[in-house]
């Protein structure tokens, strides 16, 4: 439960940061925090008391109780890639915005666009 609440707190912080921080780069970092929160949440769903990493070692036929749930890990590999990709593209956009408008402050940027 604690880890769930931790994920919730991270998520809230992240999304609040996206909305409230005045600097676009900081918004982007907050966005990353938000994405990580979801990853934490998913991965914690995979945890199983008394089980080990989902990689088959030596020995007989595997039993479900022995291993962690591999599905959330798989999903989160994908989610991490999504997060990385979004961040990469967003950085690209920020570089462009910075060189074109000479500011990363949201309000200044909007004023300049007016």
């Amino acid at each position: 439960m604690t880890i769930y609440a931790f994920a919730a707190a991270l998520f809230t912080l992240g999304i609040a940061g996206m909305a409230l921080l005045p600097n676009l780069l900081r918004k982007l970092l907050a966005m990353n925090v938000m994405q990580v929160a979801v990853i934490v949440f998913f991965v914690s769903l995979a945890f199983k008391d008394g089980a080990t990493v989902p990689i088959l070692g030596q020995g007989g036929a595997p039993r479900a109780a022995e291993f962690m749930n591999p599905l959330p890990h798989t999903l989160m590999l994908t989610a991490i890639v999504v997060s990385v990709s979004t961040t990469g593209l967003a950085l690209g956009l920020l570089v462009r915005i910075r060189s074109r408008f000479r500011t990363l402050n949201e309000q200044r940027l909007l004023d300049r666009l007016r």
Partner: protein
Amino acid sequence: MGTAPPGRPPAPGTPRVRRLLGAAAFPALFVGLVVGMTQLPEFGDPASPASTHLSPRFIEDAAAETGAANMVTAVLADYRGYDTLGEAAVIFAAGLGCLVILAAAGARPDPPGAGMSHPFGSVVLDAATRILVPVVLLFAVYVLIHGHVSPGGGFQGGVLFGSGLIMMRLVWGPAHEGRAHQPAVPAFGPGLRGSLVLACAGILAYVGIGLAAMAFGGEFLNYGTLPLGGDPAHVRELATLGIEAAVFLTVAGTVAVLFDTISIGMRESGAPLPPGDGDSA
């Protein structure tokens, strides 16, 4: 952060309305999430739906069905191989995007000596890189191939490979110029255009394997139908390796593309911003 220099108004902060709204909305979000979470299965509960519904098959049958000892790899590349194709497409999309946004007029070669080598320009750095890079690149390939039986796989390997490429670029400058200023360094690794080609080739290989399965009468990405000989699990294992290699190519290529394009953009973006821009809350 620091105060703005005199004569320059401080950067504006967030509008008050939004701050007030946020002060109400975000605590509500947090409370709502936590209230919902209290009803979720306990952390680590072996009897939770997540642990009992789908995962037993993945755990118990994956090795027999797909030939992968690493169940994550089995799910990633086989049961949910379509997701992984999507994942490759996502990162490829980011690469495309940065190319479009930043390297607008195509991969313009940098002027000689425009790399980041000179600021560092130390013999130690150069020597360390020479030793490290081959190891990193080799380890990347190992991580790719060994993904079947241990943590690893195409994405992880690709990122490692890509960081190897980045390391070279950081120390010796962009790969696509003649490196006339440092002839001792062997020209190795793809340039920007080459990285793009790598990324494209990865996606093409992935989709190609999927379509090949269709050509032999299976569903899209149903590797079991590929005529590679051996029992189905073995065929699937081979094909999965192909998939992982495709992801590897895409990721490695895209990581290099992202680095190159952003560094091109940074070089063009000129003077640093005034201090404190946007920092005042």
